[in-house]
């Protein structure tokens, strides 16, 4: 996972990790808090599912929190993201309200999608989150479109496009990266390589070793980083965002990470070993982030416990909010199919 961008402004003296040099203590603590929120949101979601409070399925990103949060560090609310079926983390990282997320999960009118979308479609356009997407690779061209808008309208916004290793074999990946480069658009493609698309390992699905190697085919910078290392992720994506912001075009960043849970609720984990899972669990991105902050005296152990407790409380409140929320009215089921209701 050696290669990094050649273009980068921030210098990190004395081997200080990038994130420590670049971000304030508050920013770093906020990032850790978001990582806890993602973890606890998903644990809560899983628990609700087990208790039969939720129907459908869900895709948990537990173990991938550094990738989501690290990738959004230098984005403002004007900047956009497109997300995936495994999108809770991106959503939290981009600033979503946990209560409305949970309400959506519970299918309530107070949810982000008024109960129409569910886990796989949570979005918050007001924060620049254009939405999770149930179609693998579906968000890639959409992200390019958002970057085209930014360039044409001169908003200065950058779009970060999240997608998985599995998505990299969709034609949409190829078409999107090619167009992004041909038109030199401000978009950063962030591949969250968690080694499997459902049950199919990258070895069995993808002709190259590192997905970032495919950047060559689009003459854009490509870099593979340890996706469980918050600082490494932020370093790579920030540099790419900066390139995009300066008009230097798109980049591809590959965050190598791992999902601790099965692909979805129906997964029997037949395609990977307990050892592999245990090995990755020993590299918990949240624990690593906490250690980074304590090592560099950004936060004490107590403060970290406080951050975690905060996150727990927010999730509890969110679940309470979601539980109390009203169900959508059945007679309003066709509302929002069109912007102006049409007679039919």
């Amino acid at each position: 996972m050696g290669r990094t961008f050649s273009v980068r402004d921030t210098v990190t003296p004395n081997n200080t990790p990038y994130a420590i040099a670049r971000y304030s203590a508050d920013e770093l603590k906020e990032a850790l808090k978001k990582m806890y929120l993602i973890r606890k949101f998903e644990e809560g979601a899983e628990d609700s599912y087990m208790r039969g409070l939720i129907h459908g399925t869900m895709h948990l990103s537990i173990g991938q929190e550094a990738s989501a949060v690290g990738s959004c560090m230098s984005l403002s609310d004007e900047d956009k993201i497109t997300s995936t079926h495994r999108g809770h983390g991106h959503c939290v990282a981009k600033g979503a309200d946990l209560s409305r997320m949970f309400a959506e999960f519970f299918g309530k009118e107070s949810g982000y999608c008024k109960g129409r979308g569910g886990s796989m479609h949570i979005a918050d356009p007001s924060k620049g989150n254009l939405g999770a997407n149930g179609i693998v690779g579906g968000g890639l061209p959409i992200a390019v479109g958002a970057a085209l808008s930014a360039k044409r309208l001169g908003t200065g916004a950058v779009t970060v496009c999240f997608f998985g290793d599995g998505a990299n074999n969709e034609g949409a990946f190829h078409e999107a990266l090619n167009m992004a480069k041909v038109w030199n658009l401000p978009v950063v493609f962030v591949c969250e390589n968690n080694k499997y698309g459902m049950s199919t390992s990258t070895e069995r699905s993808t002709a190259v070793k590192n997905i970032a190697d495919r950047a060559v085919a689009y003459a854009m910078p490509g870099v593979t980083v340890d996706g469980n290392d918050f600082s490494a992720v932020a370093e790579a994506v920030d540099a790419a965002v900066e390139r995009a912001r300066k008009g230097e075009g798109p980049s591809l960043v590959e965050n190598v990470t791992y999902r601790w849970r099965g692909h979805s609720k129906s997964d029997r984990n037949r395609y990977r070993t307990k050892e592999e899972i245990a090995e990755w669990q020993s590299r918990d991105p949240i624990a690593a982030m906490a250690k980074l902050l304590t090592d560099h005296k950004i936060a004490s152990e107590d403060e970290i416990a406080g951050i975690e407790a905060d996150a727990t409380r927010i999730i509890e409140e969110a679940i309470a909010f979601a539980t109390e929320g009203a169900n959508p009215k059945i007679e309003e089921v066709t509302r929002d199919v069109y912007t102006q209701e049409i007679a039919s």
Partner: protein
Amino acid sequence: MHTKTDLRELSYAEAIREAMDIAMAQDERVILMGEDIGVYGGAFGVTGDLIEKYGMDRVMDTPISELGGAGVAVGAAMTGLRPIFEFQFSDFATLGMEQIVNQAAKIRYMLGGAVSVPVVMRFPSGSGTGAAAQHSQSLEAWTAHVPGLKVVQPATPADAKGLLLAALEDPDPVMIYEHKILYKMKGHVPEGHYTTPIGKAAVMREGKDLTIVATAIMVHKALDAAETLATEGIDAEVIDLRTIRPMDRDTVLASVRKTGRLVCVYEAVKTLGVGAEVSAMVAESDAFDYLDAPIIRLGGAECPIPYNPELEKAVVPQVPDILEAARNLAKGRI
């Protein structure tokens, strides 16, 4: 065109170009995207010289990437632009269905109304150019089956312009199926900005003996047939459906209540083509009680479009087919 006047005439292609020109001049957010729509002017010359006026940034040649291109248009529409995306032939839209149907059509609903997707897509359709099975399809029934989309099929230059301008004002995705053979057809087109309402059919000819509901190029064949029928004492009402999603129920039903006889004419494959919906819509309505005869459909043969020109003609409804159907239907009525 059937209404010759001394008013200004434009071809259907020119009318579309004029609509794009007006919209682009008025609104910086309108951009054109598609394959070879720049210096080439579009495979059917529809965009013409617009690139000279608006430049490469607003008249964007895309790579040959229909899925990605359609998706870029969707993403751009969600974030402030008003893209008009041209599929070079509607057949190639088979590559873009994911973005059209899973994304453009559903994003607003899935997101609980938080965004709209004001994208316009243009689909040059139909047979008659000798381009065989992969370049001649009429697949408008696919998108007309999909809630969240609006789908129109202009038959005249005036409507081609008016419906495109209406589509650009519509906050939701609008699919425009243009018939390639109509591109050169001329007709009166009003100057300046105007819109043709999406969702309204047009009664092109009033009549009392039977109703012919037609789409696209078949509207003209139906009007031709109606002239001949008139000489035989059969008074046909001809309706141009214009919008196929949402369909103009009221206009069609009112006509059927009046005439009691219905024939639907469309070029797409008969089975599950638009005429199936027109027929079913009538058959389940109160207009059913007014029906004096079976509802006849004239649609394309159950066959890909062949290359040989005589075969090509044989697989889509022609004026004599309409005449025959109308005469059979009218029997006993007059």
